[in-house]
């Protein structure tokens, strides 16, 4: 007979209540959002009366999870960046040269003189004057290699060294390249996150995509260019030895050196050694400051190893200039006056106060380990997003009303049951979206509208089946029971197949498409739940009260 255990009824009712409870904050979107923002601000920077008042707009014991609005609804900037991982190979190879030179120096008797040989960017070529000494030279250089600490690269070294006639060729091994790529992207991701956090915008999305890409989405930002300004500067700080100064931009710097323009003095170029003495990676702090003359400057401090290198270098090179180089431009090239120990120093140049603050931020956040190439840029204006929300809201309302009326006309009282379930259904989609922190996009709204249309399908299947069972006249209660029982297989098959496509869309899609997949998938779950359980409970309760002899569906 038609009956549902009490505990099941309670469970179904509870599920519905929880769904509605979670969806509730979305009905007061801007108020809850302000309150949440104020809460975050209090947690970060302490309490002020205004913040407290804002936070109290929404009671703390209520759920405060909101559906995130996608960029296409809220407006903002979207970037897909590709990290130029091969940049790192070049830097690594350049940094190898002093080590190789120092290692081979004691072997001069066997290998002869050592000279840097012009080479492709990801290789280091060294020519020795006595080819007979090659086996010994290779042995020494190989001794510089270090084992790689990765799961896949067990037992392999980071350097591959081979000899060709009188030239030693050092490259990174394949395993080391993969490990290096991974580190580079992770590091870039971290640094981008820190830089965006320093600017302090709400809910940025910073995700790694595939092997060497990073997706950055920042809602509420004016344009993709603005976002690029925040993350695009590499801020690669190095300290290099200065070979000479020149006014000729076509000067030949010679092997192992490079030409870098001066940041402030037009037409002045420095020839500097390519391998840096110390790099910005060894900085542990940078703060805006003023120099003795009261001009804006940046104070910095090295970590112990950086401090030692810097100290040793300054001790050995008193009286000669060294260059402070930022992104291949020489900020300044002071002459070393004395041994600088303690690992701290000051960068002076012709900065404005703002520039010195920005530079300190960039140095603190760390340099991007490699350049970025932007593969995708999207800017959505907030007005367009608002227009889309408005249009979507109206369309959803109208779609909703049309379906409700149509269902009532077609199925009468049972149609009302289905309608109640449909309303609950939409609320539960929002509840679930808030719970999992899902993102609502414009196609996502379309997914909801589609759910409105399709959610009634499960009920329609049941109702049509009840109609059929009524024809065989075994009494209304039996007909309802059979209707649910027999429709179930069709409901499940139909929804599982749609769910499969939703899952595939979610897995393979990106951005808005993914938003659509989420609402579609959640819509399927909630619509099956409401159709199988909720309308059933409603019908059973109604039936128990009225005990009708005949029913019309």
């Amino acid at each position, binding site marked *: 007979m038609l009956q549902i255990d009490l505990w099941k009824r309670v469970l179904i009712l509870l599920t519905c209540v929880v769904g509605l409870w979670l969806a509730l904050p979305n009905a007061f979107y801007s108020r809850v959002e302000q309150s949440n923002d104020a809460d975050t601000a209090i947690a970060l920077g302490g309490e002020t009366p205004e913040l407290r008042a804002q936070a109290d707009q929404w009671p703390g014991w209520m759920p405060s999870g909101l559906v995130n609005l996608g960029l296409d609804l809220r407006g903002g900037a979207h970037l897909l960046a*590709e990290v130029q991982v091969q940049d790192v190979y070049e830097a690594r190879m350049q940094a190898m040269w002093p080590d190789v030179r120092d290692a081979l120096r004691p072997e001069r008797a066997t290998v002869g003189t050592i000279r840097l040989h012009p080479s492709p960017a990801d290789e280091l070529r060294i020519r020795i004057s006595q080819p007979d000494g090659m086996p010994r030279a290779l042995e020494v250089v190989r001794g510089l290699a270090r084992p790689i600490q990765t799961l896949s690269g067990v037992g392999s070294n980071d350097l591959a060294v081979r000899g060709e006639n009188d030239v030693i060729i050092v490259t990174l091994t394949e395993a080391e390249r993969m490990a290096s790529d991974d580190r580079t992207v992770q590091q870039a991701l971290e640094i981008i996150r820190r830089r965006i956090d320093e600017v302090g915008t709400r809910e940025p999305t910073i995700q790694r995509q595939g092997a060497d890409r990073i997706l950055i989405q920042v809602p509420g930002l004016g*344009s993709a*260019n603005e976002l*690029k300004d925040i993350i695009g500067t590499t801020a690669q700080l190095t300290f290099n030895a200065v070979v000479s100064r020149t006014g000729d931009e076509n000067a030949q710097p010679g092997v192992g050196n490079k030409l870098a323009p001066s940041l402030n003095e037009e037409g002045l170029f420095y020839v500097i050694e390519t391998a840096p003495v110390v790099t910005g990676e060894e900085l542990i702090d940078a703060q805006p400051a003023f120099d003795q003359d009261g001009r804006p400057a940046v104070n910095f401090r090295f970590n112990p190893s950086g401090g030692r290198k810097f100290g040793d270098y300054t001790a050995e090179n008193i009286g000669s200039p060294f260059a402070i180089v930022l992104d291949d431009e020489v900020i300044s090239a002071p002459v070393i006056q004395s041994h600088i120990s303690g690992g701290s120093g000051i960068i002076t140049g012709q900065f404005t106060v703002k520039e010195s603050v920005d530079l300190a931020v960039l140095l603190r956040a760390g340099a991007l380990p490699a350049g970025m*190439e*932007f593969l*995708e*840029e*999207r*800017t*959505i204006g907030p*007005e*367009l997003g608002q227009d*889309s929300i408005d*249009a*979507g809201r*109206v369309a959803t309302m*109208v*779609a909703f009303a*049309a379906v409700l009326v*149509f269902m009532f*006309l*077609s199925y009468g009282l049972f149609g009302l049951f289905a309608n109640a379930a449909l309303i609950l259904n939409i609320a539960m989609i929002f509840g679930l979206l808030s719970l999992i922190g899902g993102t609502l996009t*414009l*196609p996502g*709204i*379309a997914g909801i*509208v*589609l759910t*409105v*249309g*399709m959610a*009634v*399908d499960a009920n*329609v299947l049941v109702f*049509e089946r009840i*109609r*059929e069972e009524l024809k065989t006249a075994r009494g209304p209660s039996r007909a309802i029971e059979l209707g649910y029982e027999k429709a*179930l*297989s*069709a409901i*499940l*098959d*139909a*929804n*599982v*197949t*749609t769910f*499969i*496509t*939703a899952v595939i*869309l979610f897995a*393979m*899609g990106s*951005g*808005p*498409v993914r938003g*659509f997949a989420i609402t*579609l998938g959640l819509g399927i779950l909630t619509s099956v739940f409401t159709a199988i359980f909720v309308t059933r409970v409603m019908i059973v309760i109604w039936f128990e009260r009225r005990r009708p002899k005949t029913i*019309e569906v």
Partner: protein
Amino acid sequence: MRLRLVPKETSFDFFKRWKLWLGVSALLMVMAFGSFMVQGLNFGIDFRGGTTIRTESAQPVDVGAYRAAIDSLEVGDVSITEVFDPTFEDDQNVAMIRIQAQDGEEAVTSAMVVAVQSALQQVAPDIEFASVESVGPKVSGELIKTAVYAVVLAIGAVLIYIWLRFEWQFALGAVVALVHDVILTIGIFSEIQIKFDLAIIAALLTIVGYSLNDTVVVFDRVRENLRKYKKKSLAEVLNLSINETLSRTVMTSVTTLLALVSLFVLGGDVIRGFVFAMIWGVIIGTYSSVFVASSILLYLGVKRDWSKPDNTAGNQFANIDA
């Protein structure tokens, strides 16, 4: 009094001309394919790279002036279309500008975009850029690949699911219907040259899901009736099953279409192409589950003896009468 779109009892003969229906569908598919080969799809920047700029201004859009301003920058192929929509306000004049991917550039070219924006500001001082989207050719190629994978994967997954739950003939019938729907949808997009972008792929997959939904409901009934009426011919059983589920098929299609049409009219121009694809898909999907999937089933025939235990693959899953 109830609203009934389909009479209480129907006994339409859907299979009197089943060969004709299959022929019509085959012809439509050939036409769709021909249109696709001849015209090709009007790919959006997601798939072929480039930049789109959506402009809004209070002054009417002067396409000629816009074009003159942009052409002077020599950025290659530019298309400018004015957008009209009932949801716009009176002083809201919208244009979509699409600029081809710049030659020899893997990444996006923001300098070009900035130049175009300032050129447009010369022509229409109050112009605002509601959205600017650039996709580099490197990504767009991958997006096409992923999209094709997604559609193929979805169809494959569905084939396997139906095979497990039913028989291979059902699976094949359903998949032919799906391929039919996908091809006809691509065909209509190439024929009337609506912009084909990533969202349309989502729509295609939804159509796959929806069409399947319909097909599965019919098949589910066919399976039930095959067990119930062992003496009837397959054509009779198919006909009966479709007639029995007709009311549901029409009801669901109508509710879905009601929702979609309101979105089409009121949802704004940004998603109109997407919604159009879905509306088309619902209509085609309903047609194909009755006329294509079932006709294929009739053509292939099915094993009728359900009483004996069956050792064919997957039958263990077919009897989950959940």
